[in-house]
């Protein structure tokens, strides 16, 4: 089972460049999430989606955009990369909302460096 797949695994961007981080899941999960992980700071929610066509902001959405045209895919877009966006990005999905009996499945992460 593939689970949650993220691409690319690594990327170096120059300031001002744009890129899309890809995320796809094959578990038919409705809910998908994007987190960023910075050293010593845990995981912070960027955006989430409760189904195709529905997205909403998390704790740290500035500088990012998302779309959810299908159940499987939830890409994260950086329009004007800044050094503050250097981080490891994780995509996750759950069958329904994050709840008492629902496990979140994470991808392996994308390590992004903005120089």
């Amino acid at each position, binding site marked *: 089972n593939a689970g949650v797949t993220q691409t690319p695994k690594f990327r170096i961007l120059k300031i001002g460049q744009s890129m899309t981080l890809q995320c796809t899941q094959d578990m038919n999960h409705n809910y998908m999430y994007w987190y960023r992980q910075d050293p010593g700071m845990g995981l912070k929610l960027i955006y989430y989606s409760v189904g195709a066509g529905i997205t909403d902001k998390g704790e740290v959405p500035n500088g990012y955009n998302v779309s959810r045209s299908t159940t499987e895919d939830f890409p994260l877009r950086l329009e004007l990369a800044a050094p503050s966006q250097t981080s490891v990005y994780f995509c996750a999905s759950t069958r329904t909302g*994050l709840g008492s009996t629902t496990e979140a499945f994470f991808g392996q992460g994308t390590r992004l460096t903005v120089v």
Partner: protein
Amino acid sequence: QQQVKQSPQSLIVQKGGIPIINCAYENTAFDYFPWYQQFPGKGPALLIAIRPDVSEKKEGRFTISFNKSAKQFSLHIMDSQPGDSATYFCAGGVGEYSGGGADGLTFGKGTHLIIQP
């Protein structure tokens, strides 16, 4: 989002010892408290989770202790092994049975655990 405070930031324990990682939460609406384990270069993976209607949950060598009145919970690893060396995250969230949960979990900052042989 209200915080989940996790301590210690790092922890070194000898093989066979019992590392304990503590978390405290603020949001009284939280009713789902998972622990995630993350190995280098990998995404976090669910280790064990608890609901606040019980004070303890065990799965294998991993135990969560929960104190609802103090708004604290902790992870204990019995008979720790070098293979348990990883970063551990606690988290809190509003469960689906409470009508919420769509906006994700609030994570602690993580504990880097090293089990020495």
